[in-house]
């Protein structure tokens, strides 16, 4: 990728781009490509929507209170640990 990335290269890096896992130089190249390439930009929006949905839906699950209480009780009672 000496110059700018082509679409195939950009699409392969969309997730890493969204997760901010690219080097600043590569991130800059992808940003420039996305600014001028509508299909890749549309794909970016789609992948972003997917990742946001995933985090939001899965984060609804939390440690049940009874487990939290059980763990606290065990930590504070060495004979039980």
């Amino acid at each position: 990728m000496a110059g700018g990335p082509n679409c195939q290269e950009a699409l392969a890096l969309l997730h890493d781009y969204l997760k901010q896992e690219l080097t600043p130089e590569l991130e800059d190249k992808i940003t420039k490509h996305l600014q001028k390439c509508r299909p890749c930009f549309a794909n970016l929006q789609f992948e972003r929507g997917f990742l946001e949905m995933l985090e939001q839906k899965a984060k609804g699950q939390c440690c049940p209170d009874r487990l939290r209480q059980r763990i606290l009780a065990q930590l504070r009672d060495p004979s039980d640990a």
Partner: protein
Amino acid sequence: MTDPAADRSAFEAEVLPQLDSLYRLGLRLTTDPSRAEDLVQDTVLKAFRSWQRFQPGTNIRSWLFTILRNTFINDYRRRQREPIPMDLEAVEPHAAFRAAQDEDPEGAFFSQIVDAKVLNAIDALPEEFREVLVLSDIENLPYAEIAEVLGVPVGTVKSRLFRARRQLQEALYDHAVEMGYIRARDRAPAKP
């Protein structure tokens, strides 16, 4: 000489805020709420016993995820069915985007899918895909730390993630079509 009460309170301050994350990873690995609870409890006790070995300033989440995963592999996985060995490289990348782009280019159909269905679809992924997906896309651990937790190179993390996301997208897209959240893209007629 360390003060046990101070030690315990330092441990609690670091570890208790991570219980939700530990429980979520435990749930996806065991796919069973009551086993997930036992796994988290075992993990926290093991972490407490080796608290002296935790290096302050390093990532507490990676440390805890590693203990949870090792505990799962050593003490839990044997009691449930072994993961089906599969050629992870053989999973074909599938672009749900290509199928959905005309009607729903922003993937709005994803948010119509109920939470439980999304979680079931994650649980249906091979274990190697599930753990990497949870650590990256739900718990937001950087790739380098995921590589440490799993004991694999960063390149492996990336390629598993790529395939995990594609496979999950495909399952969710199929479900969305089935539920009528999105129309199936016209497929080429089957050859006689």
